[in-house]
């Protein structure tokens, strides 16, 4: 008797259609496969200017097998709020509204509309996929670029720390905040399904290593995504009911001794080639502080 095909990958089939315009090894389309698996084509993605705007291809074709409303750069959260309320008024209940935006469109130009939607608790899922720079316009720094990273506007390495948008969303008091990674699709899938069952504003941070912008061999996208978790740099968690719920893949790394050295993550990426030792120390301190905060809020 034939073995059944598990939900992932079974439900990923026919979600992202081959022949799209993404770079080799792009994490965005891996993320979109998970979204498609979770909701089928009963999903409306609200997409501001970002890589995805172009990856899905030119009119009259669309590489994503679901609905998309492309919007002006700063307003993904505002349009998603409007669609959610319009559907609610019209009694349409069976479609998931998702704002799908990059780190630039969320943490920088989109910050005000993000905060507004979160404060109003509008009913949709906001997914910020973080490739840690303005990739679509050619790798300029964003507030989510990590310190020490090369970008075209920080050729000597970014000085400022990385803006932690997930914690900003926690501070807004929204019903559900989660961090996820394209390296852990089952974890991301479970978080999408859980978010869909909650009424109100849900925020999911999705770590998305970009071969083109981070300067690595596209074959390593998943290895690097996993290293971010294995070094403790990225903690996968959910925040609801007033506390952190650490996700399975991150649980071992609450113990500092289990974390792989940061260098293993940095040395694979060309953008950190010239990183100074003091920047590495800054990153290590950041990791330690983050885990202290997590331990206090579990």
């Amino acid at each position: 008797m034939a073995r059944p095909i598990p939900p992932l990958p079974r439900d990923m089939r026919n979600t992202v259609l081959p022949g799209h315009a993404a770079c080799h090894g792009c994490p965005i389309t891996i993320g979109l496969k998970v979204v498609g698996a979770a909701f089928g084509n009963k999903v409306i993605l609200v997409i501001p200017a970002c890589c995805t705007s172009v990856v899905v291809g030119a009119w009259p074709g669309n590489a994503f097998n679901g609905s998309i409303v492309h919007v002006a750069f700063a307003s993904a959260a505002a349009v998603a709020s409007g669609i959610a309320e319009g559907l609610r008024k019209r009694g349409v209940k069976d479609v998931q509204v998702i704002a799908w935006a990059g780190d630039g469109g969320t943490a920088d130009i989109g910050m005000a509309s993000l905060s507004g939607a979160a404060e109003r608790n509008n009913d949709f899922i906001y997914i910020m996929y973080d490739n840690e720079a303005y990739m679509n316009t050619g790798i300029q720094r964003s507030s989510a670029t990590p310190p020490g990273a090369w970008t075209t506007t920080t050729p000597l390495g970014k000085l400022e720390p990385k803006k932690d948008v997930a914690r900003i969303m926690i501070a807004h008091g929204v019903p559900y905040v989660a961090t996820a990674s394209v390296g852990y699709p089952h974890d991301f899938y479970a978080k999408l399904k859980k978010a869909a069952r909650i009424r109100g504003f849900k925020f999911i941070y999705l770590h998305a290593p970009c071969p083109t912008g981070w300067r690595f061999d596209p074959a390593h996208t998943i290895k690097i995504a996993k290293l971010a978790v294995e070094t403790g740099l990225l903690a996968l968690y959910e925040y609801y009911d007033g506390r952190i719920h650490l996700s399975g893949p991150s649980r071992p790394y609450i113990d500092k001794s289990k974390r792989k050295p940061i260098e293993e993550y940095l040395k694979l990426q060309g953008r950190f080639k010239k990183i100074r030792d003091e920047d590495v120390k800054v990153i290590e301190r950041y990791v330690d502080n983050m885990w202290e905060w997590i331990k206090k809020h579990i």
Partner: protein
Amino acid sequence: MPKVVLTGNYTVALAAKMARVEVVAAYPITPQTSIVEKLAEYIDKGELDAIMIRVESEHSALAATFGAAVAGARAFTATSSHGLLYMHEWVHWVSRARIPVVMAIVTRTIGTPWNIWSSYEDFFGQRDTGWILGFAMDNQEVFDMTIQAFKISEDPRVYLPVLIGLDAFTLSHTTMPVDTPEQEELDKWLGPRRQGYVINGSEPLALGNLAWPEDSEEFFMDLQRGMEEAKKVIREVDESYGKAFGRKYGGLIYRYRCEDAKYHVIAMGAWSGDLMEAVNVLREEGYPIGLIRMRFIRPFPDEEMYEILNGSKGVIVFDRAISFGSLGPLYLDVAANLTKYTHKLPYMRNIIAGVGGVNVTHKDFYELVKTTIDDLEKGVEPPVFTWYHRR
């Protein structure tokens, strides 16, 4: 039909309520604020079955209004001046998506410096965006035009958003009598929301994917066709509203004493009322003067404009805004559109006044028009461009 006495802003709110809007996303700005407050009150009292999204900026206001409209709801917003400028990129996005939406603009001067009084540069800033642009003279017309805006924008021959302008304070905060229809009659006349497509999950549709140049230009040429069709639709809606509720204005242009006019004045907005007073006095003194009051400047009533001005001995266009480095925007539109029909233009004069909200009275209008006609009759041509400023 119930007659009420309302400020312009409350009139806008009442019209939106009677049109049964379903989603309102708006941000307060002087002098529009009481529109939003009134709508919030209607909703909380249960008089209006709508959802209000209390957005955090005007850019998000039109974004959220658009979102609700794309999802199938009759959506409405209102703003003014800097708020309108803040949402300007969205003004383009909505019309190019061919999504029906109605927006009220209380026209207010743009800074630097801060200034809350009426002039029309915020309105004219939307001239090229593909929105149908209408402007009211009194609160009755504010009511009628706001209601009609829904019917015009949701007409399948049009499917374009509509913007209705009203003067800051002169209309927005001044009470005037407004005649309103019975709700059931209005429901029958207006009907439920119509749109050309909806994105609600019923089928996978992507709005706004990147488009190559040739495809893009074809979308925009079709937008221009929609504008052309809108001229017909605006006239039909005016006629049909007149039949149903007893008031019609003449479509895109309201003609006042133009039948036997040899000289013409052109204006738009609340000060047209003062201009009408001046026209009346001048007529009594024997001046063959007529007023062309613009109700809609987009689509521009080019054919009708030529029809009225053909054979005119002199035309004055009053502009309550200036395109810095050039002339008044209404004058630019009138003069250029006439060249579609003739290259022998009548003598045309552009008078800029009231910019920054300076009060222009019927006495000012009387003086300006009288001296212009007297000069022309003597064979003297007054300067084409004048900025009339009075302390």
